[in-house]
């Protein structure tokens, strides 16, 4: 019998009631009295020197409140980067300034030149058209390899080149890896592109700035995954507002997938302008604007070499990657191709020697930063593709080759600095072959053939590092922030519980899952527990939601705070029951004295905490509220095995996904329904990356795929029903819930499965094709088939 409440149950989501009836409260639903609207005049060239910005005529247009340009931000800070990478030679990365509004130069199409604040959106836009801008156009750098050639035009005049950093990992392994590859029995090499993507949460970004002159307090309502991070970055680095005078609120957020982690210029602008103008200022992104301003994801160009010995054991791995940073360093951009990518290059395998080189490059494109998976999909894709290619070159079964090289003993210290605590990769592979019905493939292949279609099967594994994570570790790696999480558990007098968490939900269902944990711990109903998040005014400082960290880190903080509460409640109970604290047990919402029938209900204890008439006041304070900050001592390592079956129309090159199965090990699972939903969503995004999506710039830095007319989003008929399973569970050993994180797995594990399947289909049909770069659009597949 599945449980009906608490940990492991799948109660219906409580947040659904408001979303399904149209009474959710997203940022764009907020309209403040007296608010003005801002329209940003954005560069339509990728690279140029601003020679003049004349706002005279525009300022006189109807409804205009004020027009701001870069000059208005001269004394104001730039948007900070939260992570510093040190390059191979010990030097810090090159870190250019990132002004709120362009100063002197524009560096990508969409770079904001001026901001018009007016009474209405249309008036602001009318006036923006009347601003006279002169730009001396400069040659754009778009291609990464060209960007780092001598003499290439520089995105930032003050930097020595367009190379942000040249990172080697682990630098000390370099020579040993080179030697192992020279001496290997077999080396498989693959060059590939991890295509540039746009996160595209369905809710475009919105910012509403407000200012209260009476208290000198600024408030920003924003579509963010981490309001505290925005408050810290914007307050301390951009606007110079102390945290106690700045409140950041992220109400219901319509998806993020990474793109709403970062601190954006529009947030700083609306907060700044509201204070200057003494009235609220609102900005709502259009989707077209989102394509030009939201940080993009991926965009790596990689060469990977896998060395094997005569028995097909992996002996060494070497990669060289060019990673696009775009025109500016977005909040976490430098960490993505390095610490979130290099550390995962071991995958599920015991390759003893690994060297990863990453060259991060500035180009005249919008900034690139974390997108669902962030670095880990890039690592998984290249590794799982090269293994597949190796198996085909060696004529061995790709699954057998993987199994042969699996890490099987835990804990396992990889040669790329991380230690896997638990896992069982054979178990997920076994589960996969069952749920994917791998045994039935041949029959389905014959059926496809009979219909004139090619069919292919692609299988791969993945591992990821989640629960990001240990502050001491990330600090060594260059993070300029801690990455703990926080929670306050407040018990009300009548026994209800309010959890205030620094985590944030933008679709993950925390309002449902977090109460499941508390309900289990105390033995009360879930509807006695309320979750508060998304507002810096009433939640403790926390780092927010990304990197599949909410339950592993935020949930752990909540558990720790709840444990403190329970410990205190036990003291009160012991007093009420006139027993020793050591004998008090909490079960099903009541405290009892071990071995007796004496008990007192949860609600009586909580009442006593607030009405302390009969209370151990000399020992403990009244009240029942505790806060915990949880900082784990390691990442968590979810892992799994995925299988994709495709059908391919040989005449048109069109690929359809016929079956997709995912067997994941997420450790313990609090809500299986929600976990499956997270996997489904990730799979669609990974399938989207593999078959459909691609942000493409032309050589002048114009974004060609700048709307849904050209950027192909996965739709309902692009995907099948998926088979997902998370019954293989090796609990995480170092967090109290034993959970590992499930938010990104689907997006990490699926692209190689799709590409492996397409290559399989083509090779089965006799085509000598070893690789096609994503997205595997019909035209690309067809072109590859033409040879």
């Amino acid at each position, binding site marked *: 019998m599945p449980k009906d409440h608490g940990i492991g149950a799948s109660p219906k989501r409580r947040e659904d009631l408001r979303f399904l009836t149209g009474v959710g409260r997203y940022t764009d639903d907020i309209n403040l009295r007296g608010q003005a609207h801002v329209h940003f005049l954005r560069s339509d060239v990728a690279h140029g020197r601003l020679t003049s910005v004349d706002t005279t005529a525009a300022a006189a247009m109807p409804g205009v409140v004020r027009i701001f340009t870069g000059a208005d931000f001269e004394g104001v800070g730039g948007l900070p980067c939260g992570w510093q990478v040190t390059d191979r030679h010990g030097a810090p990365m090159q870190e250019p300034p990132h002004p709120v509004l362009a100063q002197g130069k524009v560096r990508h199409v969409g770079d904001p030149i001026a901001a018009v604040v007016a009474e209405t959106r249309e008036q602001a836009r009318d006036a923006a058209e009347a601003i006279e801008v002169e730009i001396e156009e400069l040659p754009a750098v778009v291609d990464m390899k060209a960007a780092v050639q001598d003499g290439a035009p520089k995105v930032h005049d003050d930097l020595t080149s367009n190379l942000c950093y040249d990172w080697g990992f682990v630098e000390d392994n370099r020579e040993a890896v080179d030697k192992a590859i020279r001496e290997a029995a077999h080396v498989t090499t693959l060059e590939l592109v991890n295509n540039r993507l746009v996160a595209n949460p369905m809710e475009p970004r919105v910012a509403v700035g407000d200012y209260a002159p009476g208290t000198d307090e600024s408030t920003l309502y924003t579509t963010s995954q981490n309001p505290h991070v925005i408050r810290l970055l914007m307050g301390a680095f951009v606007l110079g507002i102390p945290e106690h005078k700045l409140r950041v609120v992220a109400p219901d957020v319509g998806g993020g997938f990474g793109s709403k982690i970062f601190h954006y210029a529009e947030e700083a602008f609306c907060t700044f302008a509201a204070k200057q103008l003494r009235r609220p200022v609102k900005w709502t992104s259009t989707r077209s604007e989102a394509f030009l301003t939201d940080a993009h994801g991926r965009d790596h160009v990689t060469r990977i070499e896998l060395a094997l010995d005569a028995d097909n054991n992996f002996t060494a791995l070497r990669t060289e990657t060019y990673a696009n940073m775009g025109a500016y360093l977005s909040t976490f951009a430098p960490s993505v191709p390095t610490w979130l990518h290099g550390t995962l290059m071991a995958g599920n395998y015991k390759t003893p020697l690994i060297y990863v080189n990453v060259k991060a490059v500035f180009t005249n494109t919008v900034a690139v930063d974390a997108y669902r998976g962030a670095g880990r999909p890039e690592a998984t894709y290249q590794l799982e593709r090269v293994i597949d290619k190796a198996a085909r070159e060696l004529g061995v079964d790709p699954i057998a080759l993987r199994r042969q090289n699996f890490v099987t003993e835990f804990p396992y210290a990889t040669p790329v600095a991380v230690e896997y605590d638990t896992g069982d990769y054979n178990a997920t592979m076994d589960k996969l072959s069952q749920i994917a019905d791998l045994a039935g493939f041949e029959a389905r292949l014959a059926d496809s053939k009979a219909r004139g279609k090619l069919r292919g099967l692609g299988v791969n594994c993945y591992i990821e590092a989640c629960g990001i994570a240990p502050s001491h570790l990330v600090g060594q790696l260059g993070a300029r922030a801690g990455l703990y999480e926080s929670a306050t558990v407040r018990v009300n007098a009548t026994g209800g519980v309010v959890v205030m968490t620094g985590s944030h939900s933008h679709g993950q269902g925390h309002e449902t899952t977090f109460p499941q944990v508390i309900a289990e711990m105390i033995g009360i109903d879930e509807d006695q527990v309320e979750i508060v998040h998304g507002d810096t005014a009433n939640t403790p400082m926390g780092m927010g939601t990304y990197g599949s960290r909410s339950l592993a880190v935020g949930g752990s903080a909540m558990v720790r705070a709840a444990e403190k509460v329970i410990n205190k409640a036990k003291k009160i109970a012991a007093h009420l029951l006139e027993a020793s604290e050591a004998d008090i047990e909490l079960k099903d919402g009541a405290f009892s004295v071990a071995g007796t029938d004496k008990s007192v209900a949860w609600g009586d204890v909580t009442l006593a905490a607030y009405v302390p008439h009969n209370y151990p006041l000399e020992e403990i304070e009244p009240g029942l509220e505790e806060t915990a900050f949880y900082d784990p001592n390691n990442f968590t390592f979810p892992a799994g095995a995925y299988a994709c079956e495709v059908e391919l129309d040989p005449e048109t090159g069109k690929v359809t996904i016929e079956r997709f199965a995912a067997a994941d090990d997420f450790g313990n699972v609090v809500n299986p329904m929600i976990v499956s939903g997270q996997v489904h969503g990730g799979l669609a995004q990974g399938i989207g990356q593999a078959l459909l999506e691609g942000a493409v710039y032309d050589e002048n830095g114009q974004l060609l795929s700048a709307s849904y*007319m050209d950027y192909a989003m996965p739709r309902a008929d692009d995907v099948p029903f998926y088979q997902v399973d998370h019954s293989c569970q090796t609990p995480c050993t170092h967090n109290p819930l034993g959970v590992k994180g499930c938010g990104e797995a689907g997006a990490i594990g699926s692209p190689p499965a799709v590409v492996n399947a397409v290559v399989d289909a083509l090779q089965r049909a006799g085509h000598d094709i070893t690789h096609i770069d994503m997205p595997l659009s019909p035209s690309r597949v067809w072109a590859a088939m033409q040879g």
Partner: protein
Amino acid sequence: MYAFEFERPDTVEAAVAALKTEDAQALGGGQTLIPSLKQRLASPSRLVSLTAIPDLVGVCVADDGAVCIGGATPHVRVAADAAGSYPALAALAANIGDPAVRNRGTIGGSLANNDPSACYPAAALASGATIVTNARRIAADAYFQGLFTTALDEGEIITEVRFPVPEAAHYQKFEQPASRFALTGVFVAKYGDGVRVAVTGASEDGVFRWTEAEDALSADFSAEALAELSVPADGMINDLHGSGAYRAHLVKVLTGRAVAAC
């Protein structure tokens, strides 16, 4: 959007009169015009909605057997009401965009816009349809004049489109993965006096007739009749979604499939 006046007349005469204002523009279902107004790509002084004119909405069969569709008839109506009289046309309409687009978008708007990837132009050209306006009748062969360009004059309204019904016909649409418009679409229509093949989505000059295929199919209406033919890649659209060579290849594949499905 720039500001404009909005009018919703209920007769063709009133609409024609309203369109005489400088920079006035007709509004069909708005499924193309409204997105372009949002991008400020158009700045009409006045929009004249045609969807409240009862005479412009509906599907009927004329005495000569032609299927006549009112200029402001939404795709959803064509899909339903032409299903018996001209199934291939109804099927084409049923696969334009999505249900919400089909509930609003009109045949007149589609033909007036003449998007190089739109579906209706292929049907109209392959069927040798007549575009009837408030002022005259225009043969499809004379109507389509290149990308987003037609024989329509300023302020001229498509009031009806008359489709002679073929013996057999089929439309094959290969969708562009993002927009789901036709990356390439081929409409094949077999009449007593010969076969017409119209191609959309492929050419830099917009919808066109593939006359070699028409000749071959008029002689032998089978996919095999196309075996020796090929479409030159020159002049085909080359973009992010496919090269000219790919589109040229699709023209042949889709023509064959359309014939086979007839």
